[in-house]
């Protein structure tokens, strides 16, 4: 603002108004997050009574209560369960989706067209159409109330959205590299692992981060498959607060909410460029 060029230019009021508008919109949008953080630090009597965002005094005991655990299950256990499921999902999606994507993007095989169309169609398939029988299958296998129903499907590339994302990315890679590799005697497996996969890293990172965040946030699947409180994830533990309407539970509930949100916020801050660009490229590139 203090640079000399500004002096020569007239102030662009339109541009200023634009920034003011955007900042105001951001303020409204980020309010729920500020509210969450503030409430997690408020003593019980201040939660409802006042509109002030800033607590009268900081009530750290909310966090102590939250860290002590929910339903006699320690928070580390809940955190560990969440991490196990999200980590398993990430591993499964990255491996299985990149394998399928390579076949669709680069290899020729019979029925490639119809199978690709089918894969795209499953992106639009409502989850609930397959959910009940999947539940019954896992129930027959005795796997309900274990983590298998939450992790195993990811190793079978059931999230077609990511297959599509990686296909789109691989199609943008120069074919000459693989042709050169083939002339050097690389079969499809070596050229996948040594040529294509390293170049696909940005798409794989996008897949990994989105899978982590979506699995971490997922509620419905965890709700139907997990019963034992010591198998609960952070999301499911929060669920036990859903019925609670007494304000005494408010502080600890939102302290736990902050803890449950923390990994996503950290992931977002660290990888926002990948996330935003991954989302953008999924819709635009033909």
């Amino acid at each position, binding site marked *: 603002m203090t640079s000399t060029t500004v002096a020569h230019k007239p102030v662009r009021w339109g541009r200023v108004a*634009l*920034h003011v508008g*955007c900042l105001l*919109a*951001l303020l409204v949008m*980020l309010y729920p997050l500020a*509210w*969450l953080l503030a409430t997690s630090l408020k003593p019980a009597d201040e939660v*409802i009574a006042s*509109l002030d965002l800033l607590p009268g005094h900081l009530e750290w005991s909310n966090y102590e209560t939250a860290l002590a655990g929910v339903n006699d299950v320690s928070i580390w256990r809940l955190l560990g369960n969440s991490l196990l499921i999200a980590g398993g999902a990430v591993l499964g999606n990255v491996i*299985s989706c990149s*394998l*399928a994507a*390579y*076949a*669709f993007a680069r*290899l020729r*095989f019979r029925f490639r067209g119809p199978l690709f169309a089918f*894969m795209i169609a*499953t992106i*639009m398939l*409502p989850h*609930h*159409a*397959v959910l*009940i*029988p*999947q539940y*019954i*299958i896992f129930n027959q296998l005795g796997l309900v109330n274990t983590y298998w129903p939450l992790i195993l*499907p990811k*190793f*079978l590339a*059931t999230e077609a959205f990511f*297959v599509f994302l990686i296909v789109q990315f691989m199609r943008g890679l120069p074919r000459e590299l693989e042709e050169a590799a083939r002339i050097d005697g690389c*079969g*499809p497996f070596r050229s*996948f692992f040594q040529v294509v996969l390293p170049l696909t890293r940005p798409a794989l990172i996008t897949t990994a981060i989105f899978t982590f965040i*979506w699995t971490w*946030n997922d*509620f*419905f699947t965890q709700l*139907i498959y997990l019963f034992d409180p010591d198998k609960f994830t952070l999301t499911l533990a*929060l*669920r036990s607060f*859903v*019925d609670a*309407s007494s304000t005494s539970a*408010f502080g600890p509930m*939102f302290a736990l*909410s902050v803890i*449950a*949100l923390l990994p996503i916020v950290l992931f977002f801050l660290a990888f*926002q460029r990948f996330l*935003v660009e991954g*989302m*953008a490229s*999924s*819709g*635009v590139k033909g």
Partner: protein
Amino acid sequence: MTTTAIPPEARHAPAAASKRRPKREREGAAWVFLSPWVLGAIVLTLLPMAVSLYLSFTDYDLFNPPKWVGLRNYVQMFTEDPRYWRSVVTTLTYVVIAVPLQLALALVVALALKGMKRGKGFYRSAFYAPSLLGASMSIALVWRAVFNDGGTVDNLLGTGGWVNRPGWALLAVALLTVWQFGAPMVIFLAGLQQIPAELYEAAAVDGAGKWRQFLSVTVPMLSPVLFFNLVLQTIQAFQVFTPAFAVSAGKGGPADSTLVYTMYLYDRGFVASHMGYASAMAWVLLLVIGIVTAVLFRTSRSWVFYASEGDR
């Protein structure tokens, strides 16, 4: 491709001689790469769809073998179950409120950010953040408190708690979806940036004002992206669950006003153990989403403009 150029006798030559791996072996490799996906598609998609279609014609409680009842679940659903229709109306209302509002906001913000030189990256990320956080139970609980009696909205607008009032509770759920406009916004923004500047210059030379440029250049050039967002957000909106569950303390209240389709499906299947009925509901949802998508695709022919169409 090139195999047609090879004389027939060479085609039968051993692979080593032609330095070319036989086609069959490469096709085999493709199936190895595809095998997890194929297994998943059969065992976790196609088979379950067939099973759920079958179950939708049965009475099944998970413990006793399914009992064939023909079309009874469907008949009951359509003619004898007011809560079913309630959930249909609730879901449609929600879709009709949330999706257009969300897309409109996404487009407006994307247009505002488009020409920005400074701060664009920051705004883009900041507006996108709710799209990731908003799907969590944490934020759904915040939403319930903010829209409750004595919550911020009550204090600011004096409307009382929305969450306890039929008719308003669903709006609170819809606003949580609208709040997550960042994902379609990012896609709009990427689409806007791919519109060649020459088109605007040409329109300006022809005397088109800003509004005319928007209608004649931006809208048609952006229509494929608009269509993509519309289809994706509509399909997702039909499946809304977590915010309705949290806002209504898992009950779909008040007066079933937030009993969205998937919540009623969950209630019938996993709470009341009527898996046959829930399967029938799932199939109707599948058909409705299929029909809505097909209708969107059909109408898109008249308003979605593909720049590459001329090349075909």
